[in-house]
């Protein structure tokens, strides 16, 4: 068992900063805990009414590469009277020392004990970080179960993509926020200030906060189950709580606040560069993609602003690389002129420009070369499925012509590395679709033989990287059963066998255990809260890291808490079944998702809604912007 950390009480923790500093001499990456980074914020007690802890349930270097952290940090610290500090999951070596020396979880900025803050907000980016939340609360000395917490404990909040199905964490989190965070965080902060000033109880606060749009207070809803174990709905326990929680949407990307002075970590993180958010949302409608559904509608930032932000951010950080962020860069309505201008700006400042997931068709070779120059990875492509039929099912609009056209282009340009991403286990998949993957690899190798540079030909490599399909909430495939681990294994071996015969081709695939656990948690219900806590008790944490992931312990936790992996991961949901996340309105209607599922079964694609609305349901709440290609920009 882990030694318990006792919660912070008054004077005893006055010297926390010194005690942390002592540990820093003994850990691997002291810079993760040190604070003091350029552009990080410190506030004095006199100017602070409300203490937020922004909790990232993974390591510092992961969290600091996440743009959402920088945005929220900036938004909260721009609020008068609000002081937002960062808290990360300590590395294993640090955690052991903290438990030995009874040092509680602390903030990076002031090394303040997390339990002394007014509110801790977790960001939920991936399901496999859930045990880290339990672990962090334990390190803070705060009870994991919301029912066990006292009036003195911080309020525990959460947001981020995984809160669109928050149920597995509903026993732990006091309230969730869904959708864009900018406005709701400010409204919640005002309410928290009031709570403090007027001495509201937790219950009183939760009643108030449940009336803010986009907020879900799980303790006000009791899940109901039928005899078959499936959910039948929720019983409301507090009358004024909303029947359904509607996600928040920030419409104007040109007036919303954006961090132009992001924190610059001392240590190397996943990405060391200035990142400007280009647009939110995606109109393509891939049927497996959760982000594509829950982040609608598309909202672009104007090119003039993107350029200005880029230059200010670079001047404020000193980075020598910049990047644009969105779900699919190429879809930006004025991507060509913008890239041309950014490229000129970057050249002048001797700065690299890195553009992830850029489609090649619209760029000249010269331009591509300049962008590619700074890209360490070479060309990447995500057809996701091996045949046109399966691509029709998943609504991925890439065609064979796109793939081969782009491959030919880069081969002729002299590139020797191409990476292809596919998924296996997609609904409707047969072995012919797997053959299709091998076929694509073969054809690209053939293109190299035909068009490749004589001198470089021999070095050519096409990498086929395969991930396992995980059905996600709020997607047309939310009803689908995930393949069994045995079936995944069979498909991996089958593909490996097919690709073994292809020269100049390497094959990568993911472990099935993590995919299975992800599938359980992504569509889990409230009963899994016990399983998560049990898994943590058994020693699970950092489940997303291969060196820590221990599926045997998880299986034990499922057994101990009477939860059935098959029920969650491998069971197709009935079309009329009540789903645990139906209480959340992500903007896209269930009716539309079901329609999309039927279209998928008929192998029919749905058009990109930039070309015309397909009626997903967003218009119930907002006017979807229409962007014309190349308009209004010179």
């Amino acid at each position: 068992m882990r030694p318990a950390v006792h919660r912070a009480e008054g004077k005893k923790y006055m010297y926390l900063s010194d005690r942390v500093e002592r540990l820093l001499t003994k850990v691997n990456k002291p810079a993760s805990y040190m604070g003091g980074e350029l552009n990080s914020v410190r506030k004095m007690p006199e100017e602070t009414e409300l203490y937020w802890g922004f909790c990232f349930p993974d390591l510092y270097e992961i969290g600091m590469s996440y743009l959402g952290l920088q945005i929220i940090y900036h938004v909260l610290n721009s609020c008068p009277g609000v002081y937002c500090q960062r808290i990360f999951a300590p590395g294993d070596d640090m955690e052991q020392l903290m438990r030995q020396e009874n040092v509680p979880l602390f903030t990076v900025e002031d090394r303040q004990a997390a339990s002394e803050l007014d509110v801790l907000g977790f960001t939920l980016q991936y399901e496999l970080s859930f045990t880290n939340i339990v672990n962090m609360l334990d390190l803070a000395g705060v009870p994991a179960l919301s029912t066990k917490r006292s009036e003195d404990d911080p309020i525990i909040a959460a947001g981020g993509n995984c809160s669109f199905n928050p149920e597995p964490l509903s026993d732990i989190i006091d309230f969730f926020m869904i959708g864009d965070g900018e406005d709701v965080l400010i409204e919640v902060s005002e309410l928290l200030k009031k709570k403090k000033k007027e001495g509201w109880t937790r219950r009183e606060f939760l009643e108030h906060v449940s009336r803010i749009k986009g907020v879900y207070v799980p303790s006000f809803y009791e899940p109901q189950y039928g005899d078959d174990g499936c959910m039948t709905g929720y019983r409301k326990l507090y009358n004024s709580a909303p029947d359904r929680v509607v996600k928040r949407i920030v419409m104007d990307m040109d007036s919303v606040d954006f961090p132009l002075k992001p924190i610059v970590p001392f240590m190397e993180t996943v990405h060391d560069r200035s990142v400007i958010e280009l647009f939110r949302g995606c109109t393509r409608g891939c049927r497996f993609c959760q982000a594509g559904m829950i982040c609608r509608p598309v909202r672009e930032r104007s090119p003039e602003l993107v350029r200005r932000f880029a230059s200010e951010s670079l001047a404020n950080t000193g980075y020598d690389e910049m990047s644009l962020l969105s779900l699919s860069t190429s879809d930006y309505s004025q991507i060509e002129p913008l890239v041309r201008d950014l490229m000129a700006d970057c050249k002048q400042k001797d700065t690299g420009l890195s553009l992830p997931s850029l489609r090649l068709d619209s760029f000249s070779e010269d331009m591509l070369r300049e962008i590619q120059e700074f890209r360490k990875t070479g060309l990447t492509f995500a057809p996701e499925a091996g045949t046109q039929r399966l691509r029709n099912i998943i609504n991925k609009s890439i065609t064979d012509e796109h793939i081969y056209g782009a491959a030919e282009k880069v081969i002729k340009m002299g590139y020797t590395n191409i990476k292809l991403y596919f998924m296996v286990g997609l609904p409707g998949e047969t072995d012919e679709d797997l053959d299709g993957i091998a076929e694509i690899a073969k054809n690209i190798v053939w293109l190299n033989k035909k068009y490749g540079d004589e001198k470089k030909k021999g070095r050519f490599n096409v990498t086929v990287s395969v991930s396992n399909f995980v059905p996600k909430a709020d997607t047309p495939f939310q009803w689908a059963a995930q393949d069994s681990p045995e079936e995944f294994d069979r498909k991996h071996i089958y593909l490996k066998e097919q690709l073994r015969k292809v020269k100049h081709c390497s094959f990568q695939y993911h472990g099935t255990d993590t995919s299975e656990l992800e599938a359980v948690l992504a569509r889990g219900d409230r009963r899994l809260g016990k399983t998560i806590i049990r898994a943590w008790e058994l020693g699970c944490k950092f489940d997303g890291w291969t060196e820590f992931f221990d599926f045997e312990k998880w299986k034990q936790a499922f057994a101990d808490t009477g939860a059935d992996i098959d029920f969650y991961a491998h069971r197709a949901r009935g079309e009329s079944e009540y789903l645990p996340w139906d209480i959340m309105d992500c903007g896209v209607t269930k009716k539309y998702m079901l329609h999309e599922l039927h279209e998928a079964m008929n192998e029919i694609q749905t058009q990109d809604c930039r070309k015309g609305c397909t009626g997903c349901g967003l218009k119930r709440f907002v006017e979807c912007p229409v962007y014309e290609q190349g308009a209004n920009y010179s």
Partner: protein
Amino acid sequence: MARYLLKFSKKGGIRFISHLDMLRVFQRAFRRAGIDISYSNGYNPHPRIGFAMPLSLGFESEAEYLEFRTDTDYGIQQIGDMLNEKMPPGIEAISCRRIDNAGKKTAAAVLARASYTALYRGEDGSMRAEVTDAIVPFLAQEHIVSVKYSKKKKKDVESDIRPNIYSLSSVSEKRLLFSMMLGAGNSGSLNPEIMMKELCRFCEVEYRDYEWLYTRTEMFFLDGKGRPRPLDEFGGSLRSNI
């Protein structure tokens, strides 16, 4: 082309920033300040910027040296001012000099000695006398063999550290504070922590690494007569105290 030697101090929390990260801190600060560092010629150009000597993680320093070159001629005052404005807390520029006439060798190449202090910050000050009294017999040894595990060779490696100890003394009546001059640079280098560990082992006092704070106080090169001179005097005429 202009060549500079910047002297700065590194104190407080920032002492946990590693050597490589420090280099990035400076490169970014130069970019923010709009100072363009020269690049070397050749197939794989690299920025012409480097420290005279790495500083161990957790050490403070009153005398770090950064040597760099620029294509544009910047005023010395300008560089110092810009840096002090753009550096994270804990790093302070002390002086910046033009060393265009310093010859072919870099500051790192001429470095021969470094001085340090070691301060005990733990709770058990009672062993002050023991450690202090041990200094004379400790230094009287002809050889002081230190054993270190080598990751490269995958085994313990012995080395004699005595030749790299040039002086060691206690400098406070009340506190456990020691001052020392040790070999540095290419001709033989010794980390003060290794020496203190050996001293503690010699007088059978337990050494706990987090109880000691090390500060580098100066770096030296040897003049024509073999006398140590602070790097502050290396190859330069134009001096500017910031």
